[in-house]
């Protein structure tokens, strides 16, 4: 049986003035119907570019190769018009910045109705009723009045709910949410995530949740992919990866997270250094310069994803060393 969404060996290059930047270097993952997959990484790790590539929304200069299959049919290489019948209908997307995602010159009602009518041949009245229903699901009070508001008349959290309503307008099979709460106040983040859950429940869609916030992943995802410098470096169920990370980077990420079950005097352990420039990747494993376990072999050879458990794989030459290791011990 084919998976709902299969990404295979995806590679994205951007030619720039300073040379070709390879933002995504061979990423593969699958998404099953109804599943919630989290993708974690620092900015520049290629997590957003991966999802934009799936929908063909990258700038024209981008060169994309590999394979993206939705229900078994290939999406890469299709014309923009063909892809537009998938966008919103089968795969919907929620972007990071709700402040900029809505067109300032149209009312939010118009923008939701437009999304409904993009894939459904229903009358304007039916579309309006659907829009009201959607606003209700994402928890916008006084939906009928709110329909006539312009984006600038709403708060960031409200706008992001509108964007979520737009994403679920056509009962998509997949919703890709790219850092949906990053630009928002901490206080409204939970509400927006709640709206996202409501949208999933109403549509039964699978979710790809892109974030740098492991806390969000823990609460909302079943499986987890960790990205670093354009590659997957670890993937597995949230449970497996959280409790037995097998890649130093993941371990570091978890170590820099405050934990409620930690002993009181345990200090957070940050990862030293910054992610490498994509223009000038170090040889071998890209995490090597920041890695406390680095050995000569790490400079010579970039590790592949090794299977380390059931559905759990990690890209580290020393993944075995990491069994039951604590971040504090590795990153002193």
């Amino acid at each position, binding site marked *: 049986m084919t998976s709902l969404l299969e990404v295979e060996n995806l590679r994205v290059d951007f030619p720039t003035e300073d040379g070709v930047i390879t933002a995504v270097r061979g990423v593969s993952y699958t998404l099953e119907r109804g599943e919630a997959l989290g993708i974690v990484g620092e900015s520049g790790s290629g997590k957003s570019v991966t999802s934009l590539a799936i929908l063909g929304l990258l700038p024209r200069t981008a060169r994309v190769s590999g394979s993206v299959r939705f229900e078994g049919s290939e999406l890469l290489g299709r014309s923009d018009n063909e892809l537009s019948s998938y966008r919103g209908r089968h795969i919907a997307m929620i972007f990071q910045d709700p402040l900029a995602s809505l067109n300032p010159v149209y009312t939010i009602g118009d923008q939701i109705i437009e999304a409904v009518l993009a894939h459904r041949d229903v009358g304007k009245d039916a579309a309006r009723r659907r829009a009201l229903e959607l606003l209700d699901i994402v928890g916008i009070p006084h939906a009928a009045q709110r329909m006539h508001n312009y984006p600038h008349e709403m708060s960031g959290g409200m706008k992001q709910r509108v964007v979520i309503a737009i994403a679920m307008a056509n009962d998509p099979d997949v919703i890709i949410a790219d850092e949906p709460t990053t630009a928002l106040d901490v206080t409204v983040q939970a509400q927006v995530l709640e709206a996202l859950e409501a949208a999933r429940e109403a549509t039964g869609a699978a979710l790809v949740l892109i974030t740098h916030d492991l806390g969000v992943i823990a609460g909302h995802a079943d499986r987890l992919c960790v990205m670093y410098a354009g590659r997957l470096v670890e993937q597995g169920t949230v449970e497996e990866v959280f409790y037995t990370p097998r890649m130093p980077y993941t371990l570091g990420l978890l170590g820099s997270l405050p934990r409620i079950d930690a002993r009181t005097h345990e200090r957070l352990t940050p990862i*030293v*250094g910054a992610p*490498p420039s994509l223009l000038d990747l170090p040889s071998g494993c890209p995490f090597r310069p920041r890695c406390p376990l680095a050995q000569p072999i790490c400079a010579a050879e970039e590790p592949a994803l090794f299977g380390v458990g059931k559905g759990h794989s990690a890209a580290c030459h020393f993944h075995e060393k990491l069994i039951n290791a604590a971040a504090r011990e590795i990153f002193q």
Partner: protein
Amino acid sequence: MSETKERPGMGEIKERTQFQIVRTRFLRHRLAVGSLIAFGLIVLIAYGGAALWKYSHTDITPDNSQPPSLAHPFGTDSIGHDGLAQVLRGMQQSIKIALLVALIATGVGTAWGAVAGYFGRHVDNLLMRLADLVIILPAIAVAAAMAAVGGGSWWSIALIIGSLASASVSRVIRGVVLSLREQDFIEAAKALGASDLRIITRHLVPNALGPLIVNATILVAVGILAETALSFLGFGVRTPDISLGLLINQAEGAVNTRPWLFYFPGVFIILIALTINFIGDGLRDAFDPRQTRMRR
């Protein structure tokens, strides 16, 4: 000022100053670099060429109304003036005026806009209404009226055009200053007790340098187009002196019979303004890379 720093995992990275970054970006802009060289050559020809050429712009040769030839590459007019000598002199005057226009407009406009933006409130209101006074009137009409009164010399024309142009410069600089004013380093300077003058001259103006330089460059092109238009109308540079605009004015009646007198000065105005605009474009890209992506 370049130093090397060791960062974990990053190898050696050269930290570059703003100037070096801008220079590198500018040098990558081939059209702008070519234009800079071309403009340099034009200036060199205007001044050096005039000194070397066998005729001066006041010489009256026995050949009148001659089409371009080896003896007179740009032909001669009906009196017998050598066309090349006249165009070279016209270029000198026009370039001189245009550069002075840019200098005056930038200087006056920067002070104007910086003071308005920095002090805000009533000062801002007053100074910007003053800019409105200038901006609501067609500049060429005001310049013509002013030049008819106090014009004549090349520097008075530059002064008139430059001060009129400073009004729009002041608006640009005010905008930049307004956005800078709220930033932390200005607050910090204030907290440390720096005087207003010091904050404006040491913190605001240097940080507005990018837009300032780009604007000044574009103003050279604005200056040459304004001066030649004014001279064409008869209110700018006047006979016996020469500007490119005046040459075109004198050639207007004889475009059919002596086309060389019309085309050569025009082509040089276009060349000067075009190269300046390309240089300005390159500088804009160099100072503001974000805009580059947007604009091209």
